[in-house]
């Protein structure tokens, strides 16, 4: 029971922390630069 509760909390924390800094590629938010990376469709 306690284990389930911990897992639940962990899942919640993961979702909340992921939402906190939301953005994704199309967002045009400032991200850093990875040389030669596949940012959009340049495979």
């Amino acid at each position, binding site marked *: 029971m306690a284990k389930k509760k911990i897992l639940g909390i962990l899942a919640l924390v993961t979702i909340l922390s992921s939402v906190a800094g939301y953005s994704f590629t199309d967002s045009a938010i400032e*991200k850093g630069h990875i040389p*030669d990376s*596949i940012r959009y469709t340049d495979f």
Partner: protein
Amino acid sequence: MRSDVTFNSEELRELLNLWYMNIKLKKVQAAEKLKTEVSEQLAKGEANDDVVKLALLIHSRHHILCKNYSEAEKLISQVEGFSPYLKEEHLYYLHLFKGMYLYSTKDYYNAIEEYGEVESYLGYIQDEIEKAEFFDLFASALYYLDYTNRSAIYAEKAIYIYQLYPAYERKLTRTKIMIALNYIDMNEFDLAEEYLHSALQDTSIKYDYMLQVSIYHNLGFLYERKGLFEAAKRYLVKVLKHTEFDNYLSTIYMLTSIAFEEGDFDLGKQYHEKAMDYHKEKPDEDYYWKFKILYVKYVEKENYINVLNNAVEYFEEKNRFYELQTCADELATFYSNERDFERANHFYRLALGHHNNLIMFHSRR
């Protein structure tokens, strides 16, 4: 030239490897030649089924390289049709290329799902560098989609392999940069700094100026996020002479923003002008609007609301969710203060609608 020679399945497999290598290196012409050679060999009907399936998959990868996405999709679906008869090696490439295809069509969520599938077949891949390159590819996609923790984990996996192969030193440095950027997103600035300086040291040992420029940009980005503007400027100005740098407008954007923030309007205007000149040569509409907003915010304040309204239209059309939300939120507050509640309501709904989209996207991880 070699069409008079018939390859057996093993030799054909070698040819396929060579084709795949050239695709990965983005050598389009060489890849085209090998494609023709493979087609000629396949037409002779000597290859076994496994090799034919592999050839179809590599052909789909070839289409992705050439941006013929609909053709790539057709081949991927064709191979998917053989699903019960596919070996682990085929499944590895199938999920990998399908992930690439989906990513290229901006179906990011499903692309990540496919990449996740790839991992279970890695054990069947002999080539360690192929594995490292997959981790590298996955990590950079995850970084741009803001799956920060997962990105850092895969970048570490790539580093673990790259460091065993001196020939992949440059990729090792790149991966260090990727980990640093993830640390920036986690606000772990000290760790990010450590990785970036280590990467910078790598480039000074084996001089690689494009990597160096990228690191200067990222150090500027780190210090700007940290609010240390003097340090940020010190690195960002080092990038200015490298107009070939592919994030050049982003560098000038940070410099302009810092100048305005510090009240140095003349310098801010100079950077803004430089950015607009650059935009004329290499147009980038996203940055055009970002600069326009920045300029009217500090210089032509009377046009601020008007420009924000136009920018919202642009960002909405282009699905630039983050920017749309920021601008719509700003407009909603403005109209609310003006007691124009109808408009305020419209922009709040716009901002909230896209905020919900983002939450949906991330909660499906």
